[in-house]
Structure formats: C-alpha cells, structure tokens
C-alpha cells in the first residue's frame, strides 16, 4: 500500500504552507441521485431561485411544458439539453450549469442517474469538491444511493451533502428525515467518509433549497444554498505537498528575451515559492526556483490551481512530462503500479491488455499485467479478481509501464494520483485510474 506516514517537513525555521484563509470564490459541485429522485428539478430550482434563468429561457421552458401537456413549469426541462433527452424524458450526458450568488460562483456537473451511466457520475465527481446526493423521502436510501455514495468516496470528493427530496410527499415529517439521515450517515461512515450535512428539501416547491421552509420548523441547519456558499473548499490542495507538472518549455528567442527559458504549468497541489529547492521527476535533476513569472510580472509564490511559468537556476533537462517537487516530499518514480480502474468502455478489459496511460503531462505505454480484485461498491472492499472488467465496474489492477512515471497515491493526492487509460488503437478513454500503491 501507499506510504501514508507523514514525512519530515522543511526545516523548522521555515513556515509551512499556510492554510488558505480566503474562502474560494469558485465551487465545483456535482449531483447524484436515482432516476426520479428529482435531480433535474433540484438543479432547475437552484438556477431559478438564484435568478440564473433569464426571461427568454423561462418562456422557452414554459412553451415546452405546455407542448407536453403540463401546467406547472417543468423545471427539469431547463437541464435536458439534447433532442433525445427531451423526447425520452431522460438525461444522457453530463451537463454543466452555472449560477452565482454575491459570494460564490458555482459550476455544477449535472450527472444522469441511470445505473448504466455510472461513467458520467465518475466524470462529474472527478473535478467536484462537493457532491449533493439526492434521496427520495418516500424510498429512503436505496442501492443506487449506496453506489453513488461509494463513487463519491472512491473519487474522494471532499464534501458530501445529503438532500432528502420530496419532503412535501411525506408531510414534512421529521422522523422520516431523521431515519434517512441516520441510514445515510451509517452508509457513509462505513465508506470512511467524514461527517456530512443533511438537508430536508422539496425541489419542486423550493423548500430549504434557496429559501428556508416554513414547513420544517424542526430543522435548524442551513438551506442547501447557504451550505454551498459557506462550505470551506480549496484547503486540501494547498495543504498537500507541492507538485508542478511541466506542460511546456517557453523559449521565446526574441530580441527582448534572447535567453529566456521558462517551465510553463499549473501548480497541481501545495504552494511553490521562489527560492525553493526542487527536483524534477522522473529525471531526478535538481535545481532552485529563481523566479515565478506571470504575464503581469513576477510573483513570490503560486498556490494549487495557479497557472504560472517557473524559472530555474540551472539549465536542467526538465521538459514536458516532468514534475517539480521538493526533494523531501517527492512523488514516487515507478515502472509499475497498483491502481483501481473504473472501466468506462463497452469493450471489457482483459489481463494482458496493452494500453496508454496519461498521467499529468506524461503519456506512457503500459500493460495491464493482472486484475487483482473487483471493488464491491457497497463496502469499498476488493473481492476476488474477475476474469475481465466490464463497463462501469471498478477493479484493482497491476500495471507495468513502458516508461517512468512520478506518481502519488490517489488517497494522498487527488491531483497527481489519477490517470487516464487510453486505447492504443482508436485513442478512446477506456478508464479512470486511481493509484493505490506505487
């Protein structure tokens, strides 16, 4: 397994990377729920009640609602974008929605609830810092809920919110809500997820989504939107060890910049500071950060998420595919690794398959040497290895690499522990890979 013991940090005289005091102004979130849990209605409600839907969109949905013989505005029609979706009344693909309040901007990955579309949930969850899991108050926690919860745990979405929907259909009864809350909390803690917030809502009527409901006087927590506006995010990535995958080397060779050589990239995690000793991996070359450049001028440091250009003291061979890290907190340079693969392709994975692995800014050939287990989404434990891995299944695999990769375990770093598995023949994305041990 991955080594999770804390490694010695920098000398005492130096400050640790500060926890980010500011609350991030951008929250990426995703929704998950079974079919008919009212997910599209909830998303429509959030957009509508934050005034993110404008008059012409409202009028179009109103026309479409009437055309389908409805009378009450069908909020789900805001989000079903494709012709086939509207015709069949289902959501096929991840749709991205945008809304904002004076405190935050929200990017919502709206994922379909059908079991066969697990790949969309994985896609939405991979970038989400928060997941809203919907449960129908009449049905309680069902197998689908456990699966969605497991996907969120598997992809380490830092924050999960339980939204118990359709409370109006159970008379806003507190015991019903509390019962589902404790079922859900039990399922979540079995998966090792931290404590979470639960909100009783009616997406259809708007209770506790944006405005506080008068029908739930027994509920004293935040409305869903209040929680989304205040949940602290972005701290995890800044607190992790510094990782800077090099995207490309900028060498202008112009009259103004004849000898400039900068490493362009986005800080994946941690904080990069001028003066840092760094090592480029997998090559192993060491150097010092002599400058951090932006088009607006040099800065002293850059935190997770920032795109900058790094200047090094020595002309070391650190091009695309290298990762800069501090020598005392390095990723592991490996030629083989163990990983969980979430299989996203119709064509099953068989041991011995030759694939490409895209990790950070490096792509290497690889062989899936063995399947080591199948992940039981109810327990997040591995069962006996399957003969092959089918669409939407998650399995452990041992992978041999044709080149070196500098990896972290996904458990220790969400940003440098994930990779794509790509078909060598047609270039399609076959799987989401999460490094378990390297």
């Amino acid at each position: 397994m991955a080594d999770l013991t804390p490694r010695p940090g920098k000398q005492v005289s130096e400050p640790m990377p500060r926890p980010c005091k500011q609350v991030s102004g951008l929250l990426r979130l995703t929704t998950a729920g079974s079919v008919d849990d009212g997910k599209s209605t909830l998303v429509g409600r959030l957009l509508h009640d934050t005034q993110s839907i404008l008059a012409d969109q409202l009028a179009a949905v109103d026309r479409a609602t009437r055309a389908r013989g409805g009378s009450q505005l069908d909020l789900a029609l805001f989000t079903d974008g494709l012709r086939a979706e509207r015709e069949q009344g289902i959501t096929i693909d991840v749709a991205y929605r945008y809304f904002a309040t004076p405190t935050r901007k929200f990017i919502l990955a709206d994922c379909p609830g059908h079991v066969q579309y697990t790949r969309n949930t994985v896609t939405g969850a991979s970038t989400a810092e928060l997941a809203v899991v919907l449960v129908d108050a009449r049905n309680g926690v069902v197998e689908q809920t456990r699966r969605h919860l497991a996907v969120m745990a598997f992809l380490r979405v830092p924050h999960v919110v339980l939204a118990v929907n359709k409370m109006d259909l159970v008379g806003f009864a507190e015991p019903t809500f509390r019962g589902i809350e404790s079922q859900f909390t039990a399922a979540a803690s079995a998966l090792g997820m931290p404590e979470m917030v639960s909100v009783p809502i009616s997406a259809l009527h708007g209770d506790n989504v944006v405005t506080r409901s008068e029908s739930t006087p027994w509920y004293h927590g935040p409305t869903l939107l209040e929680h989304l506006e205040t949940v602290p995010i972005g701290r995890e990535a800044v607190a992790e060890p510094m990782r800077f995958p090099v995207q490309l080397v900028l060498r202008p060779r112009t009259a103004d910049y004849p000898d400039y050589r900068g490493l362009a990239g986005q800080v994946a995690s941690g904080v990069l500071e001028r003066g840092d000793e760094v090592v480029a991996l997998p090559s192993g070359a060491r150097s010092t950060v002599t400058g951090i450049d932006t088009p607006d001028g040099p800065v002293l440091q850059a935190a997770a998420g920032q795109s900058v250009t790094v200047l090094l003291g020595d002309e070391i061979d650190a091009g695309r595919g290298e990762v800069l890290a501090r020598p005392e907190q390095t990723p592991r340079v490996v030629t083989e690794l163990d990983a969980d693969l979430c299989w996203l392709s119709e064509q099953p994975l068989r041991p011995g398959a030759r694939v490409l692995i895209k990790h950070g800014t490096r792509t290497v050939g690889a062989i899936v040497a063995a399947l080591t287990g199948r992940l039981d989404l109810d327990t997040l434990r591995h069962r006996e290895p399957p003969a092959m891995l089918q669409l939407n299944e998650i399995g452990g695999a041992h992978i041999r690499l044709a080149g070196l990769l500098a990896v972290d375990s996904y458990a220790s770093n969400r940003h440098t522990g994930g990779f794509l598995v790509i078909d060598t023949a047609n270039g399609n994305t076959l799987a989401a890979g999460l490094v378990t041990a390297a």
Partner: protein
Amino acid sequence: MTATMASPAAVDVDHLAALESEAVHIIREVIAEFDRPVLLFSGGKDSAVLLHLARRAMHPAPLPVPLLHVDTGHNFPEVIAYRDQLVSDLGLRLHVAAVQDWIDDGRLTERPDGTRNPLQTVPLLDTIAEHRFDAVFGGARRDEDRARAKERIVSLRDAFGGWDPRRQRPELWNLYNGRHAVGEHARIFPLSNWTELDVWTYVARREVPVPSIYFAHEREVFARDGMWLTAGEWGGPRNGEQVVTKSVRYRTVGDASCTGAVESSAVTIDEVLAELATSRITERGATRADDRLSEAAMEDRKREGYF
C-alpha cells in the same frame, strides 16, 4: 533560504483568476500535444478573450497559433477594422475563409432568407481540411445553449466535422484526451466554464480590446422578430419595416443580417457590466434569430460541424 511571506495577491482564489488559470492550462496542453492548432477568431468578445488568454499562456513567447476568421461577408465594418488592427499590432497570422467564395464557385447556395450563419460550416470544415488543422480553438461557452452545456472542453470531430453527443469521451480531472485519427480534429473550448458576465468582467480587468459596437452608439435600425436589426444591403428593411435611429449596442457579434442590437446607453465597460447585471434576457435570446428556429437549433448545427 529566506522565507517569503504570502502577498494576498499571490494566493488569489477569486473565481475569475481560477477560470483564467484553467483556460491557460487547457491552451498549453493543446499547444503542447497537437501539431497544427488554429484559433477561431470572429472579432467578437469571446474570441477576443480567447486570444488574450492564448497570448498569456505562451508569454513571453509569441503565440505559435494562426487565427481563422470564417467571414460571412455580412460584416460590421467596425469589427473588420478591429480585427485587422489587432492582427497587425500583434504580428499574428490570419486566415480568412469567405463564405462569398464558396457561393461564387457553387459549393454553397445562398439561403432564401439571406442568412449566412448556417453557411459558415462548410467553409470552416474545408479550411480545416485544407490546412490540416488538428486542434481548433473556439470561444464557445457552455452557458450559451443547452446543447453546448453538454460539450466537452476537448471535443472530437469526425472526418466530416460532425459532433456526436452520445459518443463523447468522458473528461476526467484536468486530463484532456485529444487523440484522434488522421483527418479528424478536436475542437477546444477553453472558455467552457465562463459566463457572459465572466467574459465582460475579464475584459474590464485585463483591459482586453473589443470592437466598438459592443458599446452604445447611434444606429439606423429596424424592428424584426422583436430585435433591432441594422439597416444595410442585406436582409432589410423589407416592405413595411420602419427604419429608426436608436442608441443601441450589440451583445454578440455575428452575421450582421441576423444579429440583433439591444437598446442601450452603456458607453463604458462599467456601464455594460451594470446593464448585464440587470438584464433578464440571455445574449442569444436577445440577439440571435437563428437560434429561434427550433428547440434544438444549436444541437442540429453542431452535429453538422458548426462552431
């Protein structure tokens, strides 16, 4: 080693800074991995911001990507003047695919309604094929339309330029898979997660130059389909349509024959931002006749290879 304290600006987590960093990351990935990228440049605000971000991504190196303007021939002169000035100031390379050329030699036929927006697809695809462009940057945003809401950031097009929403690759983390067969290409949308308001806020923050028609000016216009269209040699006014002079501005820049203006007195960016904050109509709803054709107008055009 001396400890350096954080200046507040260094840990800038404001949402626009996050969007900017995301776009720069996308642009750098594509420039690093593709052989022949090109940037679609209409002269509109989104392509102006896209170009600005692409230049930032490569700074201080020059932008190694040419621009491509698919020219309907129904242009606002102010936009063409802006385009030519910008290209000359920045020393960029510009390809122009003129719809008129395709009409002249019979590869395209003028539509009965005179609108040329849908006619842009063929010149676009022909030019991509001719120059073997394998990555085509566009300024489309997911908030513009519900078919666009389902678009990937790196979105594969088949050899016919078509978009098949059911065959899209899952897009995980910030790892973009642009692998494609010979003859196929990818459309790249670095502004996917931006809204109209984000674009304008960014224009103000970075002082990105945009054409003058985005600001209020006196113009001879006539009313059609609830929009103010500019009086000109194409499309109007027709019988019964009264030409009046109004203070208007444009919220989008497209084919002049079907892009409407809105009444406005906003002559500065701050005034434009204030106007947007209270606007109750989307930019496409306010200004694009071609999107009113059906519930799935954009989806249908995208499937055929449109922007």
